[in-house]
């Protein structure tokens, strides 16, 4: 392939830079790459010195590895604000369709590249978790727009439920007794049954939404839906390495908390404004269902 470590060292020593230099970009770095008329997000898998120039084997993020290829530095750019703008402009000129800009709440537009920029910032600083706490402005700006578009306002009685939940656990040292009946899983099933009885059939897209909620619930419960007082209980209810799903153990109390966090999660999907409106309708209907069945689904006292 033409690269030898001796040659690299000579080059490096001659130019007086570090021995590990691999040209303008390095392995593992996420960079923008030109391909055809557009600019793609890529990750550098390998760097090699070939025929007097640095070449980078890039992987196009989100695309099959079959597309991976060697490119020169001339086709690559760092993900700076200016370059991300370029990416956005090129995409716009290709599609010429307003809808494809992603979520478009009135007055404020966030495109895929702006979202990526936020993500890139987080990636480059390597402190995604900290960034969430220390930079509430950029995070909450994005989720605020989403919250607006989603407009999942919980009815008063469910808000009250959340506050009582908070009181029991953080103020009174109590816990929800597990496993719950009905579990979140069972609540989803009841909802589908209810819709089937009422409308005869259930929409494909509604099924996807419910599957999505289930998926979010299972993955995010330990990551963002527990009060610190509940961690020990979680550890024994869902042992590490077991395939117990939170959906089958936890119930409406925790499902409700998911709705508080939903926009933080949906941000990643970069959903278009119109799709969000549809989604909001479906979610609002589900929330009404929870409210109608509040006395059956929620605990009024904790142990």
């Amino acid at each position: 392939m033409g690269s030898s470590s001796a040659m690299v060292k000579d080059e490096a020593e001659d130019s007086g830079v570090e021995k590990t230099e691999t040209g303008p970009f390095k392995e593992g770095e996420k960079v923008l790459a030109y391909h055809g008329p557009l600019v793609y997000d890529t990750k550098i898998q390998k760097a090699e010195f070939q025929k007097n120039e640095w070449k980078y084997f890039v992987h196009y993020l989100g695309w099959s590895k079959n597309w991976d290829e060697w490119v020169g530095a001339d086709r690559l750019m760092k993900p700076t604000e200016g370059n991300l703008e370029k990416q956005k402009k090129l995409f716009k000129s290709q599609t010429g369709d307003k809808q494809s800009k992603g979520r478009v709440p009135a007055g404020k537009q966030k495109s895929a590249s702006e979202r990526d920029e936020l993500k890139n910032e987080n990636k480059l600083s390597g402190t995604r978790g900290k960034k969430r706490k220390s930079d509430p402005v950029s995070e909450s700006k994005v989720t605020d727009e989403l919250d607006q578009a989603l407009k999942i306002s919980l009815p008063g009685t469910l808000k009250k439920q959340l506050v009582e939940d908070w009181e029991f656990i953080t103020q009174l040292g109590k816990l929800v007794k597990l496993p719950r009946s009905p579990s979140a899983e069972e609540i989803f099933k009841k909802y589908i049954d209810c819709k089937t009885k009422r409308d005869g059939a259930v929409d494909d897209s509604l099924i996807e939404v419910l599957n999505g909620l289930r998926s979010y619930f299972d993955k995010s419960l330990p990551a963002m839906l527990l009060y610190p007082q509940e961690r020990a209980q979680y550890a024994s209810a869902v042992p590490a390495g077991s395939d117990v799903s939170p959906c089958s153990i936890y119930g409406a109390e925790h499902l409700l908390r998911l709705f508080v966090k939903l926009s933080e999660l949906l941000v990643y999907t970069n959903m278009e404004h119109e799709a969000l409106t549809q989604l909001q309708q479906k979610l609002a209907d589900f929330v009404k269902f929870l409210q109608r069945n509040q006395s059956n689904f929620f605990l009024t006292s904790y142990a």
Partner: protein
Amino acid sequence: MGDHVQQKPRDGTTSSHRSTPAATPPSSASSPLKKGTQQVELELRLLEAFAIYRPSLLAGMHRHFILFGLMHHLERRLNQRFSPDEVLQLLDRFFNLDLLEPDDEELELVNHKEDFSLPQSILEEIKRKKISS
């Protein structure tokens, strides 16, 4: 659905005569010469959709909402309903879905434990109600 959809066995194996895109650029559709305008339009809309809804997210927790977004996008632009399975079949033409893995970001999110906290707005709203009742 056209004559280019390849049925992938659900057990995850790939058939030997499944064509995978070789060194052709992602921006142009890699298909044989004869193609109706409908087919081209479909593929164009798909590629457009992929710029919004990252296909790599299909491997993780956002899968169903990504599918929801794709279904909606295609229906709106092509005036044709696609089921989730049909969308997956279309995706299969461009990606080897088996090879998709969850994003780094998802792993970070899942591993980073953040305590739940109730938004101040909700707490305050209910406290006010309690005081006034």
